[in-house]
């Protein structure tokens, strides 16, 4: 008789990537990605310091490498922040839409100034700056409007739910589901709970 198992059912396996030294699960891959993006975001504004002592000739039309790195730092930070916010949005399904808007505006600002850094032929005209500013303002306004609305409606919804539960406890249950002889005990019990809530 063959020793081979006839059981064809398997427990769901975590997707894994086998590298030379490490076996990375999806979770750890995400952690590495998040840490890398966060580190890049935090370090980028300081990278130009490397060229301050011994500055070199710049690239992409910049006179010095330090000025190029400085010009690159803020868009990098904005792009990384946008990516991080986009990821946070996926973890919060209720706020996904708002984080999407916010992350897009961060990404837009990052890309806008990245283009400015890597296209040395011309400087943006005032009208392009103002158009960019207007687009970002509109996106942020829409995002903040939805975020504010979400926070308020969530609170209101919770209050309505609590109110309905109290109606059930105070009005409906004693009339429909508690016998006459147990009414006093029941009322004492919910009064206790009300007092405990009041002390919170």
């Amino acid at each position, binding site marked *: 008789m063959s020793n081979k198992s006839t059981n064809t059912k398997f427990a769901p396996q975590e997707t894994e990537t086998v590298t030379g030294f490490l076996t990375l699960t999806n979770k750890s891959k995400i952690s590495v990605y998040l840490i890398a993006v966060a580190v890049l975001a935090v370090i980028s504004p300081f990278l130009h310091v490397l060229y301050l002592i011994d500055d070199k000739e710049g690239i992409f039309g910049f006179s010095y490498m330090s000025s190029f790195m400085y010009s690159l730092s803020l868009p990098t930070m904005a792009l990384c922040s946008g990516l991080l916010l986009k990821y946070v949005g996926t973890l919060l399904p209720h706020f996904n839409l708002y984080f999407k808007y916010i992350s897009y505006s961060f990404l837009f600002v990052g890309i806008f100034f990245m283009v400015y850094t890597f296209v040395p032929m011309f400087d943006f005209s005032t009208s392009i700056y103002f158009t960019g500013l207007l687009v970002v303002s509109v996106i942020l306004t829409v995002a903040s409007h939805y975020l504010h609305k979400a926070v308020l409606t969530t609170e209101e919804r919770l*209050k309505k739910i*609590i*109110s309905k539960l*109290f*109606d059930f406890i*105070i*009005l409906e249950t004693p009339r429909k589901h508690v016998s006459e002889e147990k009414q006093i005990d029941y009322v004492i019990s919910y009064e206790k709970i*009300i007092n405990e*809530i*009041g002390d919170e």
Partner: protein
Amino acid sequence: MNDTLKSLRKLRIAGMLSESALQEVENRLLQKPNQEVLQSVGEI
């Protein structure tokens, strides 16, 4: 003021309690002393 009433008013102000539920408990609290008197009279 009674502790329960205080808690109820807090909940009502916070919007977590309906007016009818507040009225119900207030009425019960008003009736309670009478019930206690009746009970003690009954025991005698």
